[in-house]
């Protein structure tokens, strides 16, 4: 599988990263090299092997479903580039 400039553009769009034409060109080359390395995995027989999710075999812990935190809007908003009246502000989404 080889990655062309269009694929890079599509993936960059999915990842929400603007790329210039020149960057797209360089990235296509680099990503192809990385993929070439990754494709060596095809040589490994993995029939019947379950994909691994976690290296530690443990039951995910559960806790009671109740609120344990909150009431700190100033802390939550303190690092926001823009906020008003207790809300994050973003460019207009709905006309």
């Amino acid at each position, binding site marked *: 599988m080889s990655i062309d400039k269009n694929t890079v553009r599509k993936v960059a769009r999915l*990842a929400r990263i603007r790329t210039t034409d020149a960057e797209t060109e360089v990235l296509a080359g680099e990503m192809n090299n990385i*993929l070439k390395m990754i494709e060596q995995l095809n040589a*490994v027989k993995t029939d019947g092997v379950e994909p*691994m999710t*976690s*290296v530690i075999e443990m039951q995910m812990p559960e806790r009671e479903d109740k609120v344990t935190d909150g009431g700190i809007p100033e802390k*939550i908003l303190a690092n*926001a580039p823009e906020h008003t009246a207790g809300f994050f502000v973003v*460019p207009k*989404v709905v006309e």
Partner: protein
Amino acid sequence: MKNLTNLTIKDALAALKKKEFTATELTEAHIKATEAARHLNCYITETFDIARKQAKESDARYAKGAAGLIDGIPIAMKDLYCTEGVQTTAGSKILKGFKPPYESTVSGNMFRDGAVMLGKSNLDEFAMGSSNTTSAYGNVINPWQRKGDNKPLVPGGSSGGSAAAVAARIALGATGTDTGGSIRQPAAFCGITGIKPTYGRCSRFGIVAFASSLDQAGPFARSVEDCALLLQSMAGFDPKDSTSVNRAVPDYTKSIGQSVKGLKVGVPKEYRVDGTNPEILQLWEKGVQMLKDAGAEIIDVSLPHTQYALQTYYVIAPAECSSNLARYDGVRFGLRVEGENLIDMYEKTRAEGFGKEVKRRILIGTYVLSAGYYDAYYNKARRVRKLIWQDFIEAYKKCDVLLTPTAPTAAFAIGEKMQDPVTMYLNDIFTVPASMAGMPGISLPAGLSADGLPLGLQLLGKPFDEETVFKAAHALEKAVNFTALPQLLLSKAA
């Protein structure tokens, strides 16, 4: 008075207890040394005011006889750990100015035990790199130099600032994080000791996430025993991290000085890879002989999927990073670049805020997770990961620890190996397999190369058996007796 910056943590603690000097004096000595070594660029943010305040509080505790485990010890905190009210950048422009409203569990544990924070240490952007050259806050310079050559060398990465600070004697210890080798490889490049504990041993809460199934916190220091002390403070169950394991933390310092007689040390044949510096192979053989002389039994083992670990890593780590880094969108924290609409703002913010290596990994990750490739790349890698893990489990039926080199070369110069990302990735060839399997691993200095640079050996252990790793590492440390100092310090003394 003693040279306060060349002590081990253990000796510093004993002297503090005996009131030979105060925590304030110890901290001031390190602040002075830090100011004199600013050209190494170890810190993104210096926190001397906090350090002085913490040292004063520590002195009060010593006066009352109520000192903690690492009370008064000046350390460097990798700038990937969220520290309440103190800028935390992850080495990225996208988090410039970010002041976390909470404390990471591990840094909180260390402050509970009396640690003094000198600053937030430099790192590869979002911990993605093996040379500390992807930081948005500049390269870190290794205090070591090649004989007869003053080219600046990399400290390794991603925890490069932490490792360089400990090697340069401007901190007694430091925190790091290790996803594919980011503690062990810089420890080797800087001639110090660093351990990545078992996945789940330390809480990841409040540590900026890179690849969550691999990230693990760990310490750097100048001796195995000091690493044991620091890990003792850092480790433990945390209900805020669902992957942290609810298991008591043993007294790691009890492992120090125990005999390795009868200990089974495995030597994996697959780690003799092409391109490894012959000096490193010789050093490895020397290490094997030293453990044998100390009474250990040497056993040849096989980890047949070793040669696929790097490829597996470069699917799984980017996949997880592309998901984790989706949160940097210019809305809740960090950089925002205004756009015509919401998507335009996202795209411009992320284009401006992330560096090249981070973008490359996000794109690879997005690609391997996208429809049509998920099974062929991501699930394939997760299957191979299981086989890598099984290799270790099989090997540990025959031995207690594994001995390998830490990195295929010594530290290289800034600018070398940087043309092609794949060449750079090969740095992690010996450290990545244990990361994929979640096993604990320590790197300690074991000798010098012909051109005078430190080389490291790595000991890997069974899950949650850091005690045996410390025991074996201490025996090796004693046999090696590494006393060389970085040129930076030698030239100062001259």
